[in-house]
């Protein structure tokens, strides 16, 4: 009986959540975004996604089987999500071998050395992504243009992302209003017809997936809402002060990895705080850092960096926001 954890008296409710169930819900929630990517960027999207997932699972299998010589748990779906999210964060014309390096790094550097699922302090997919961004800056920032799949011409045209246009233009002293004419319309940006990492382009598809996860109670509202709201308010302040150099806050919400980051990356159960207050702080920090990097940093996009920085602060946040002890 000693081995039983503390169990209170009956009645008990059985929550039938399991790691597997939660992970596969996330995979299902990512499918709409994947469908949109295939629609705009074509077949390479599927190839990259499958390669990324396969490399993540294989790496995890090899490490668990031959280095740790322990139980193999690749079917729990966590490696699948890592692979999927990593693939979502790269341009669709990335050479396959580069993505394989990223997937290997995500599992072999960011996840397994810390003890595997549940113990990694940093989101593995984001570590893989940032590793690639720093290591292969040219390939990671050559964005193919989005166009519906039946319009495939002979060549894939590459072009800058909306955030790239903005950063470059503002640096050259152009007014934001002039730059907006080069940008896709807001409707296009919501649907996903713009340059960018292939999984992040469609705000609507990502929101559909996020709502599915909210209904399934896999994620809670605190992190996405505080992330997006902080980003909106903070960039809104700059917009109100000087609308010629700072862009409309709505633009920040629908471009880049903002939606994908807020709904799927920052909400990772392993690397986010456990209490409600902590989650709100965590999300707010992510939003604030993202906008700071976008407005003042060297990179046009800062979602992945800001989430990783906040990941590092999670133990501290958890310390500050301990949940109340029951009946005290």
């Amino acid at each position, binding site marked *: 009986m000693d081995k039983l954890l503390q169990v209170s008296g009956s009645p008990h409710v059985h929550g039938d959540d399991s790691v597997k169930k939660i992970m596969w819900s996330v995979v299902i929630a990512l499918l709409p975004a994947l469908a949109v990517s295939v629609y705009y960027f074509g077949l390479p999207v599927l190839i990259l996604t499958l390669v990324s997932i396969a490399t993540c699972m294989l790496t995890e299998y090899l490490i668990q089987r031959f280095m740790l010589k322990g139980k193999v748990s690749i079917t729990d779906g966590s490696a699948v999500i890592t692979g999927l999210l990593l693939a979502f964060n790269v341009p669709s014309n990335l050479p396959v071998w580069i993505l394989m390096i990223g997937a290997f790094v995500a599992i072999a*550097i960011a996840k397994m050395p810390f003890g595997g699922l549940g113990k990694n302090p940093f989101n593995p997919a984001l570590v893989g992504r940032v590793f690639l961004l*720093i*290591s292969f800056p040219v390939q990671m920032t050559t964005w193919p243009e989005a166009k519906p799949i039946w319009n495939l011409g002979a060549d894939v045209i590459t072009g800058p992302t909306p955030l790239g246009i903005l950063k470059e233009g503002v640096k050259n002293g152009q007014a934001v209003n002039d730059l907006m004419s080069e940008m896709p319309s807001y409707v296009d940006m919501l649907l996903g017809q713009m340059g960018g990492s292939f999984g992040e382009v469609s705000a609507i598809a990502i929101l559909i997936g996020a709502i599915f996860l909210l209904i399934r109670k896999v994620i809670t509202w605190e992190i996405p809402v505080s992330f997006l709201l902080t980003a909106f308010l903070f960039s809104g302040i700059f917009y109100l002060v000087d609308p010629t150099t700072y862009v409309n806050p709505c633009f920040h919400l629908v471009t880049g990895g903002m939606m994908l980051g807020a709904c799927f990356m920052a909400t990772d159960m392993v690397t986010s705080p456990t209490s409600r207050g902590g989650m709100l702080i965590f999300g707010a920090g992510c939003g604030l850092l993202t906008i700071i990097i976008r407005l003042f940093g060297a990179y046009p996009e800062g979602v992945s960096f800001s989430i990783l920085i906040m990941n590092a602060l999670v133990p501290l946040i958890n310390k500050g926001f301990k949940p109340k002890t029951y009946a005290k």
Partner: protein
Amino acid sequence: MSKLNILTKGFFKENPVLVLVLGTCPTLAVTTSVKNALGMGLATTFVLLMSNAIISLLKNVIPDKVRIPSFIVIIATFVSMIDLLIQGFLPSLASSLGIFIPLIVVNCIVLGRAEAFASKNTVGDSILDGIGMGIGFTIALTIIGSVREILGSGSFLDYKFIQGDGILIFVLAPGAFIVFGFTVALVRYLQSKKKAS
């Protein structure tokens, strides 16, 4: 402890970088290529050898209260010598190591060996300890430097075997931390295995 033991303990068993985790600043900063790592390692070995010898000669003269400043002055003398020598004879190495040559003065390995070993042992033992620790430092730096140069720029000792760049992160700061961490982990693993058998 036998003389041989004093010399060889720094190579692996008490490797200053990988086991004692001293001198991490030059380890992370100058290991971008094998050449830099070797240059740094040998320069530090020279300083370690000379400062250990002189400090152990003077250990009965130096008052206990001011021993740290005295050690620093002795160390700084030899660092200045090696700094000028490198600038004079190896200007390209001097420019790529930059500030990290003068910074050997505050390298904790040098001061640590002076405090922990040279000020308590005979001159002969101190010289052996200095050489051993210096070689250990050089080995560690060269291992990390090789991994970083091969992965980061696709070359070894400036001999390039791929076209273009390697995995750039390995010549940048994050790559230094990753390689350093994994090397320390590997050494710990080997040592625990050795202990078990």
